[in-house]
Every structure is written in C-alpha cells, then in structure tokens.
C-alpha cells in the first residue's frame, strides 16, 4: 500500500457560521509493505485516525494518491461499527457479512472469535452493556478472524486488560509475520516500540519524523518533554 502526497481538508459551515477549514492531513506520504509493522504517534488532532481512514479507503483524500496494491485492510477502533442494541454474536455475523461472507460462513467464525476474545457468556449480551475493554476484545477478535492483509488499529489494544494485551500482541506477532502488515496508532509509546519496527510522528496533519521506531519515539518524547 502506497500513499503519496495525501492531503485531507474538513470543512464545517453553516448559514450563520463562518466556513471553517480543518487541514487534517497535509502532503503525507507513506508506504506499507507486507510484513511491515508501522506505528503512528502524535498528539490529539494530529491526523492519525484520518490517515488510517485514508488507508482503509473509507476517506478519499482531497489531494494525493492511494495505491492499495490489492491488499485488503481492516480498520479497527473503539468507535467500531458495532450496534450496541444487538448481541456480540449478531455483531460478529453482521461484520462478516459486510466483509463479503455469507451468513453461514460468518456464523462459522463465531467459535473462534468467542474463544479469542475470552468474552464467554457475555457474547450473548447486548454490546451496549460491554465495558470499553470488552468492546476492544470483540472488535480485535472479529477483525483478526477475517484475516485481512493489513490490520489498521486505532488505540484499540490499550483499553484491554494485561492478559488480553499480551494475548493479542502474541497473536499479531504470530499471524502478521511474513505477508501481513500492521499499522498501529497509539499514545502509548512503549506499546508502539514493542509492536512496530518503523514509526511516523504526525503533528498538525504533517509528518514531523519518519524512520526507525526507537529514533522517532525518542524525537517525539524529547519534543513533548521540551514543551512541558
């Protein structure tokens, strides 16, 4: 997957309000190859989630080019497209059908998802009754069982408990070794360091640094320490 010169502008306007342009991304270029583990760091509003949405094909940029190179992707965040009024089971089936599976195929994935998520009997409860960590588990387990080429994770693993974090990290490192890629957005620099080889630091929609994960995170942390 290759993104070249991506710019995204949001516009908020109303009859009685002045048009407000927000430059979410400005001239961002990044390449993700099979086997890559890329971390994206930056403060709130830096454009991290917007970049993931462009990678997922959800959002078309105002400028620049996206070449997916035929790689399928799954974008996961806590604001996931799960319906709170439905049970975990029904959400798994619906998500599978959205991704092109038949209802029967989607149902056949249920045991693996339930086992991986560790939700047990809670899988039959409405998703709106889940804690943030439980939602994260359901979201991660559903997506990983759909076997995408690129996994785009937005702050997802930081909400689970220690047990689930270790389990999910292990699964990702196992499954995403050779031909699969991970793009991971997080405020947690230590997790980015553990999971990723490369990193991008975004600031106000622009790439501030890109390269080896240790170097980028050191630069980022120095900048943050300098400001406080």
């Amino acid at each position, binding site marked *: 997957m290759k993104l070249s010169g991506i710019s995204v502008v*949001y516009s908020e306007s109303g009859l009685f309000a002045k048009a407000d342009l927000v430059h979410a991304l400005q001239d961002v270029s990044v390449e993700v190859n099979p086997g890559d583990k890329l971390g994206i760091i930056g403060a709130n509003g830096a454009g991290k989630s917007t970049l993931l949405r462009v990678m*997922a094909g959800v*959002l078309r940029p105002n400028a620049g080019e996206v070449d997916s190179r035929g790689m399928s992707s799954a974008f996961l965040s806590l604001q*996931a497209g799960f319906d709170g009024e439905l049970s975990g089971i029904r959400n798994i089936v619906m998500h599978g*059908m959205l991704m092109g599976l038949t209802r029967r195929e989607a149902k056949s994935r249920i045991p693996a998802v339930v086992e991986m998520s560790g939700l047990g009997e809670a899988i039959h409860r409405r998703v709106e009754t889940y804690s943030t960590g439980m939602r994260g588990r359901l979201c991660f387990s559903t997506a990983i069982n759909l076997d995408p080429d690129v996994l785009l994770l937005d702050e997802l693993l930081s909400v689970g408990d220690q047990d689930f974090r270790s389990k999910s990290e292990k699964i990702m490192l196992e499954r995403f070794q050779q031909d699969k890629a991970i793009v991971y957005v997080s405020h947690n620099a230590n997790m980015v360091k553990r999971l990723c080889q490369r990193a991008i630091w975004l600031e106000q929609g622009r790439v501030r640094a890109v390269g080896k994960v240790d170097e980028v995170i050191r630069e980022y942390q120095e900048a943050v320490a300098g400001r406080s």
Partner: protein
Amino acid sequence: MILIPAHLWRYAFYRAYLNLIGEASKYYLGWLWWLLEPIAMTSVFFVVFTYLRPNAMQDFSYFLIVGVTSWLWFANGVGNATACLHGARGIVSQIKLPKMLFPIIVVSAATFKQAFVFAIVLAVMGSIFGPNQHWLYLPALMVTQALFTLAAASTVAFLCCCVRDLRFIVTSGLTLMMFCSGIFFAIDAMPAQWQAYFRLNPMAVLIEQYRLILLYDGQPDLFWCVKTALGCALWLVAAKWCFERFDLTLTRRVIA
C-alpha cells in the same frame, strides 16, 4: 448486481430483520405495534371524518385501512431515511461501503413490516369481500410502490446527509403528501379540474388502485404501473450515480 453488490443485499435484508427485532424488543407490546400503528391511525381518521361528514361513504373503515396501511409503508421508509446515513456513522467511518446501502436497509425494514401488516389486511378483506381474480395484480402494485418508496428514500437520504436541515422539510413534506394522497377521501370525489393534479402523486394513484382491487373488484391500470415502475427504476439509477459521484462529500458529512 443491481444498485449494490449481491453480498450487501444479503447484509441489508439481515440488517433490516435485526432492526425490526431490535425495535420490537424496545416496547412492552413488541411487534404488536406493527399492527397497532395502522389501527390507531385508522381509528383517528375514522372518528374525525365520521363526525365531520355524518354521511360518510359506505365501508369507510375498510376504505381508510387500505389507504393508511399503504401510506405507512411509504412514510416509514422515507421518514426513517432522513437520518440513516448519520445513524450509520460507526460503520461509515470504518468500512468502505456504497452509501446506497443505508436507504436500502431502511426500506427493506419498512417492507418486511408492511408484508406482515398487509397479510392481515388481505385476510380481513378476503373474509369480508371475498378474494377476487384481480388480487393477482397486487404484486405489480407492490413492486411499483417498493420502487417508488426506495427511490424517494434514497433521494431523501442523500439530501438530508448533505444538508441536515432538510430533515424538517421532509417531515412537513410527508404530512402534506399524506393529505394529498387520498387516504381519507376518494380522488374521484374531488372537483374534476383538480383530479389530474392529485394523480401526479404516485401514492394517490397507488392507494386508488389498491382500493379498486380490494374493495371494488376492479382491474387496476397496469400500463400506469409499468410506466411508473420504469420511471422509478431510472430515478434509482440517477440516485445511485449521485451517491457515487458525491461519495467523498457524504463520507465527510457523516464522519465530521
């Protein structure tokens, strides 16, 4: 596949079914409201118009129930389409999907509900007036109405996503359209010079045709059905083009 890929049609029907289950589970009387809603609306019109017009036509209650049930199918489909894209923010912001999917889900749910209500209306009409050979034309009317409802719902979903304020106009527009669709009066009873204007509204003609079959054992105007269905099919193609052409704008409106 037509309008959206085949797997998304499967998803739309399943999602519509789940929406109905979810909606029914919220209320104490559950799915009974699917029946109670048209009965309540019919009762209100019946009481109001029987008092206003003591010499109301014979079988006025059956006349009303046919009008109300067909109207509610259209009104539910179009009314719920106003917020369908913003309501799907979670999915729209995570998965690349054709936006036409969302009005299709809304209209599918309204259609499933209508199928249930209409089966009961048919059973009642059949037991009172007896079935007749013209009932065989009912599917043609229902397909025409489904296409018209979907075309109108898609347009409303598109416009209300671009400019949210239009939701209020759609609500008022539906009320105006309800009064112009001949739910509680026969178009034939209107002044002759106005009748052609009333019949520009497809819902007015559809309600007239349903009554013709169910209450008066008459043959519907099949040429009108074919003409209208083809017009709605072209309208849907245009709606699909608009959804694709302005996909970027719609996504941003939903996500922002």
